[in-house]
């Protein structure tokens, strides 16, 4: 085997490996590396009661209740399933109903989590306040912006 042939063989092998790796990673990456579960994914996961997990979803409209000072209860959903959240502490600025949110905390029941931290998730849309008001006034306010 001449050196050139050794290299060719190795290049051939490497190319096979590379394509294999690209395929394997691209086809499987979506299901993996979870920063948070959606409520539906939570049902399928191995998570047990009293485990610490993160759940992400949208805060349900009219579900936020302020029980005491700094004590909140709300529901997050992903259109199919929902999880009740109870939280003590200060909510981030961006926390609003019908907005994306990620909570981290202990699962007390299968659909009930006691949150220790709440992260507000904001979308990639940026829009001046004045325009939004105008849009709302003219009823052009498009729900897809949320």
């Amino acid at each position, binding site marked *: 085997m001449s050196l050139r042939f050794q290299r060719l063989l190795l290049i051939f092998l490497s190319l096979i490996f590379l394509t294999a790796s690209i395929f394997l990673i691209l086809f499987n990456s979506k299901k993996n590396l979870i920063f*948070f579960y959606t409520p539906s994914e939570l049902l399928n996961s191995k998570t047990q009661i009293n485990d610490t997990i993160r759940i992400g979803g949208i805060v349900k409209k009219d579900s936020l209740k302020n029980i005491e000072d700094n004590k909140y209860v709300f529901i997050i959903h992903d259109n199919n399933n929902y999880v009740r959240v109870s939280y003590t502490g200060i909510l981030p600025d961006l926390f609003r109903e019908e907005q994306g949110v990620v909570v981290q905390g202990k699962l007390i029941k299968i659909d009930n989590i006691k949150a220790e931290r709440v992260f*507000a998730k904001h*979308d*990639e849309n*940026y829009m001046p*306040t004045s*325009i939004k008001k105008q849009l709302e006034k003219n009823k052009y306010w498009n729900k897809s*912006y949320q």
Partner: protein
Amino acid sequence: MKFLINPNRFIKFSDLVFKPLICLSAIFLLIGIVFAFFLSPNDYQQGATVRIMYIHVPAAWIAVLTFLIMTLYSIIGLAFKINFSFIINSAIAPIGAIFTLICIVTGSLWGKPMWGTWWVWDARLTSVAILFLLYLIIIFLKNSITNINVSEKITAVLIIVGSINLPIIKFSVDWWNTLHQPASISKLSSPSIDPSMLRPLVIMTIALMLLAIVIGIIRIKAEILKRKLR
């Protein structure tokens, strides 16, 4: 385009463009700051905090672009034995590191009020943190091998291996559930960012890029002269 691979031509070219570049970057920076602080509106959700974007996003782009440039130069440097590319690598690595740091710091300043936390280990943030560490390791490795001929080539190999991180950074928000929002600009058809906010962002991006290029030219020239002295 010979000035991109030939040190003497580069010095000639940079002498030509250096002063205009400084003026341009100063002007753009001024306009950009005025726009970012006074002439741009508040966001409908985030209020005034959105102004952090005007430095955070350009810094992130420059950080990634610098690594991309280093990767390209490493490849042509190793493949065609062009020594100038190693000069560029060692000159601009610290710039990339600084801009990555700026991106991380402004990002966590933005994250605290918006998300409610300084830092989370989601895919985008982690990959950018790895980018910063990679920059540091590249700088360390270059300085820990005494023989310059070896150190720059081996650093180039490390840069090429490390460039696998770049697509991960880019696509992390699309592939995985992340707290970080997806890209706003790359949807070319309809950027999901209002023109009145896109304008300062573009101006700041141009300004910071010009600034990075100016610093880069200074550092590359210094590096060329340092090697001539040796």
